[in-house]
């Protein structure tokens, strides 16, 4: 009986986060270097948000079009490659309308809350061993907590708009996101049990000898499937897009938003897709680890040549593509079906799965040693 395993790669990749470098620079008394690191980190985050947003929106439009026998944007630039840029400029130049009866302060605040929750998660993701801004020892908890923060923006936006569509959309979003967060967290706890750590960098390192999705004997696979379904619901994408279902609610919670503020919600939605995909691969698919079969050999050597950051973005794109594939294939669920799926299907399976994972870990029922650096 052979298993897919990963060769020991820890020697090759030593994890150094940007925050560690900054702390080191402070300790050495080099204030300028520390400042450079901080500014570089902030700049990189901003650039990542912009690039990921533009690329994902273009990719979504193109992929959606080809799923539906269409061509998608073709006019602006080569194969419409500048279409997203043109649309972004249009959105920035549009009038920012605030409804007269809206709660103004909250109406203005909501998109920023939504956006902030997303950007704050980007800071803790391990993009590669040397490309991580800060590695929290409770990274998984932090991500769960902050992504729950995003629903605040949606609820606030829907409530303060003083519009029935927004209101209903926001209430649905609240019910949906909070429900599905339970399943996502249960799936995520399986990985925490196996890796014995909540730090994202250490979870990636623990998959040195095999990705959790198959190394955890089916428990990991079930957890991965539950996680993907739950996070698809959490980011309000079809088939779970009832909070903004166009055919029922105009545009749901962002009906009353226009211009820049609408684009904030829109961008947050797409960055969220990137974030949940990145979380899925970090927890289950080995993060930036290369794909290996067995130990040693030419194949593994060739895989090692690909830089970790490319592995990270490649795997993330694969999961993003999967989520887009879901969106353009499945019809939207009804509200009762949505709740049925969560409370009567995913939640019981998640609990049983977590229990099974606990038994496996407790009695050491798997042949692979767990490496905790």
């Amino acid at each position: 009986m052979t298993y897919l395993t990963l060769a020991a790669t820890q020697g090759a990749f030593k994890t150094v986060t940007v925050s560690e470098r900054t702390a080191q620079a402070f300790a050495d008394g080099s204030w300028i270097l520390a400042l450079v690191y901080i500014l570089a980190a902030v700049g990189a985050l901003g650039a990542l948000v912009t690039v990921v947003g533009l690329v994902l929106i273009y990719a979504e439009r193109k992929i959606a079009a080809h799923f539906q026998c269409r061509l998608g944007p073709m006019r602006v630039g080569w194969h419409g490659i500048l279409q997203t840029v043109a649309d972004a400029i249009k959105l920035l130049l549009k009038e920012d309308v605030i409804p007269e009866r809206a709660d103004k302060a909250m109406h203005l605040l909501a998109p920023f809350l939504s956006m902030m929750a997303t950007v704050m998660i980007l800071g803790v993701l391990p993009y590669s061993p040397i490309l991580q801004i800060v590695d929290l020892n409770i990274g998984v908890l932090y991500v769960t907590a902050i992504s729950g923060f995003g629903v605040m923006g949606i609820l606030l936006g829907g409530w303060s708009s003083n519009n029935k569509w927004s209101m209903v959309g926001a209430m649905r979003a609240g019910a949906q996101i909070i429900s599905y967060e339970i399943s996502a967290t249960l799936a995520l706890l399986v990985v925490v049990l196996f890796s014995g750590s909540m730090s994202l960098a250490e979870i990636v390192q623990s998959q040195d000898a095999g990705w959790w999705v198959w190394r955890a004997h089916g428990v990991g696979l079930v957890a991965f499937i539950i996680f993907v379904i739950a996070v698809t619901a959490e980011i309000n994408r079809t088939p779970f897009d009832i909070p903004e279902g166009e055919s029922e609610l105009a545009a749901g919670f962002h009906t009353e938003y226009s211009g820049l503020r609408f684009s904030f919600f829109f961008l947050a939605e797409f960055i969220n897709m990137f974030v949940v995909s990145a979380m899925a691969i970090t927890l289950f698919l080995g993060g930036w680890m290369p794909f290996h079969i067995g130990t040693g050999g030419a194949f593994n050597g060739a895989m090692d040549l690909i830089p970790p950051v490319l592995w990270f973005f490649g795997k993330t794109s694969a999961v993003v593509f999967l989520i887009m594939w879901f969106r353009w294939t499945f019809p939207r669920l009804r509200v009762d079906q949505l709740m049925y799926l969560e409370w009567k299907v995913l939640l019981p399976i998640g609990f049983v799965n977590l229990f099974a994972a606990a038994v496996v870990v407790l009695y050491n029922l798997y042949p692979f040693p767990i490496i905790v650096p």
Partner: protein
Amino acid sequence: MGRVDFSDVKHETRAFAGVTVPVSVVPRFKRQTYPTRFLFSLKSLIDGMRLTFGYLVRPSKVVTRQYPENRATLKFPERYRASLKFKFDENGYQHCNGCGSCERACPNGSIILNTRKGEITGRNEIERYIWRMDSCVLCNACVEACAFGALEMSHEFENAVYDRRLLVYTLNRYAGPTANVLLKEENLEARAAMMTKLDTYGGPVPMNGHALPTVRALGSPRDEAKPDGKGAAS
């Protein structure tokens, strides 16, 4: 949730009140068990994903046309309908004898048919066939109503004009008898004598609801427009 299995339908005869009738016995609606339902729905989801992925990886399935660029090589679906046309044979003769079925079939009066008594043949023949594209909905009822195959829906869709009046077309190229009648006459000059040449915009045209000779404005009484323009104010 459940499914009726139509492969198990039984055909038999039964007696009802002394009459024997053939009946089809459909099996009872069976409720599926939970695992069956689960697997069935999972299978349907995977089927759907396979279908959409098939579209994604086969660019030949794309139906979008890049219109202005591919103007020279445009291909139309067989039943595409863009504008009404007369069918002409190889000599340029029409098949319309002015029976008026298309005019009666037209749901909103977009076809106005004027006929005349042929001076040479002495038979009823078409004088002017007016098609109002501005009110036509391209429903194809006229083509289906025509018993002589004189009409067709063509693929010419670039019909934009700067004046509404230019949307009123005369479809026949000549006033005169059908191809059958013309071909019986061997002498070409005699044939030509039976025909009066017309052009597309030769007839009178309406504008902003004003009735004009032979063309009735939409909503105006039917008597207003009569052949040869005598009935209408000019």
